């Protein structure tokens, strides 16, 4: 199987279905350079000797995939979906209240007092023992109370409206995605499509996405600012997140919870595509992705950045820094959750230490399908 070829193709598709068309060559170059930079920065030396031919192909693929990144949306202030734009609105509301009613009064009155009642201003009134005046006291308490009540109302409203567990209202069924946090990459599984990806999180624009998250390692936090909330992913546990992109485009995705040396490289691109584009992409990946088997999973679960992962695979499989998998099943995600809980999950290859206590051989065996849920 001509892996590289497949990948080029997949990338091309990914790209084509992006209707975002403003890609200036300069920006392409920029993006390309950064991808490259990324690849060269990783600490492990295993990855350095990328054969030249492959490298150039990698460039092509990277260009194709990342080319129109001209505008990778970084922030919820530049929202790409309903959740982020509601959050922006909430932010603006709260900020406005605070600036107008808290900051401006203090900032305006303080200098006035300081000037009027400076030591040199002998003519201003001086009342050395004046230490109580009821109305002023009451106002000092009442002002903040009113502000807090105001804010509390919007907090109550929006916290419930934007609970990340709450499915988004839509006439379309949500796309199911299962996310597993590995050290230092996210694996996105599309159980209904039978595919998975690392480095790219593709989603159809206009359709809600229902995510379940867990971690195969330490605590992590999935965050795509331009689309919506962040949420922790933890071993043995499942958290949920609902997002939606309104229009095609790419957004920055990252991990916000420090988890070791590769932390800052645990980024990905959320690529919103047209619905048809998404379907075509999915079927492309299904037919040409790497088969997601035991062995590959094992490599993924090592502590590695994407570049290191690429090098660790028996042959490098990712010309563009991303990975696409076929044969992903719905069973994988629960298996990881259970494994972490029951005690069979491998800690990173570097580490495993026997628990100090060996008196309980029974403890080494995986727990029976854990009905005792970890709280």
């Amino acid at each position, binding site marked *: 199987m001509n892996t590289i070829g497949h990948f080029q193709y997949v990338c091309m598709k990914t790209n084509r279905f992006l209707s975002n068309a403003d890609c200036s060559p300069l920006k392409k170059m920029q993006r390309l350079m950064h991808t490259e930079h990324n690849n060269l920065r990783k600490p492990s030396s295993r990855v350095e000797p990328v054969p030249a031919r492959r490298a150039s192909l990698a460039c092509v693929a990277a260009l194709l995939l990342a080319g129109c990144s001209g505008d990778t949306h970084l922030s919820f202030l530049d929202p790409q979906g309903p959740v982020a734009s509601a959050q922006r609105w909430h932010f603006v509301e709260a900020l406005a209240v605070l600036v107008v009613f808290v900051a401006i009064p203090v900032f305006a009155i303080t200098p006035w007092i300081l000037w009027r009642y400076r030591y040199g201003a002998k003519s201003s009134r001086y009342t050395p023992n004046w230490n109580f005046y009821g109305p002023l006291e009451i106002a000092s308490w009442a002002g903040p109370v009113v502000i807090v009540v105001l804010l509390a109302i919007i907090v109550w409203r929006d916290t419930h409206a934007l609970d990340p567990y709450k499915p988004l209202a839509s006439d379309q069924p949500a796309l199911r995605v299962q996310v597993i946090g590995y050290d230092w990459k996210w694996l996105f599984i599309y159980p209904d499509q039978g595919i998975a990806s690392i480095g790219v999180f593709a989603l159809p624009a206009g359709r809600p996405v229902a995510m379940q998250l867990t971690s195969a390692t330490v605590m992590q936090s999935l965050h795509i600012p331009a689309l919506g909330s962040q949420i922790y992913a933890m071993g043995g546990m499942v958290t949920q997140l609902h997002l939606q992109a309104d229009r095609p485009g790419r957004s920055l995705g990252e991990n916000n919870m420090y988890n070791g040396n590769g932390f800052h490289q645990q980024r990905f691109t959320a690529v919103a595509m047209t619905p048809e584009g998404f379907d075509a992409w999915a079927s492309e990946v299904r037919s040409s992705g790497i088969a997601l088997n035991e062995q590959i999973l094992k490599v993924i679960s090592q502590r590695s950045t994407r570049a290191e992962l690429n090098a660790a695979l028996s042959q490098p499989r990712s010309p563009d820094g991303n990975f696409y998998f076929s044969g992903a099943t719905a069973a994988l995600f629960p298996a990881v959750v259970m494994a972490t*809980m*029951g*005690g069979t999950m491998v800690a990173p290859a570097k580490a495993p230490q026997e*628990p*100090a*206590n060996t*008196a*309980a051989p*029974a*403890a080494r065996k995986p*727990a*029976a399908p*854990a009905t*005792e*849920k*970890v*709280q």
Partner: protein
Amino acid sequence: MNYEAIKHPGLNLGSAHGRDHDAAEGMVFGFWVFLMSDAILFSMVFATYVTSVGATAGGPGPHELYDIKSVFIETLLLLASSFTFGMASLALKYKHGTARLIGWLAVTLVLGVAFLGFELHDFASMFSKGAVPSRSGFLSAFFDLVPLHGLHVTGGSIWLICLVGQIAMYGVDTQVKLGLMRLALFWHFLDIVWIAIFSVVYLAGLT
């Protein structure tokens, strides 16, 4: 109307002790504050336990491990020791002489040590059933909470021995009195913690 209401509440030396009684004021209050800090410590360990009861990870749970009879005996021992310490406090306060004071303290110590013995026996039998702390989150939490109390009792016992030693050396002087008052508070406080333990851990675990 008695002087306790006038001086600090809680355990008291009484005005017959003059300057010692005054000296106790700050000391005893300080010790109360420490106890309250300790209470928060225990409460956090309790919270860990309560929220980890289900986390047996396929290992043994309360029903397989707890032995109600043993716990009952431990409870009685501790209760009795609280009473005997009370008697020691009275002997101190009403000046019944060093011999009686030391006598009651000794009884208290014996009861405390017996309690520890039973507790250790409990732990040993749990271990023999494979219920070691590293077996599960639940057992970790158990072996945090109950032995923490046991450690406190151990510390109290050592303190008690030291105080008896000080009595032997210096007689019942100010520092011994202050020490005994604080130890009394400590001992009764541990009793209260034990009430929470037998209720929340053992009895609730066995229902």
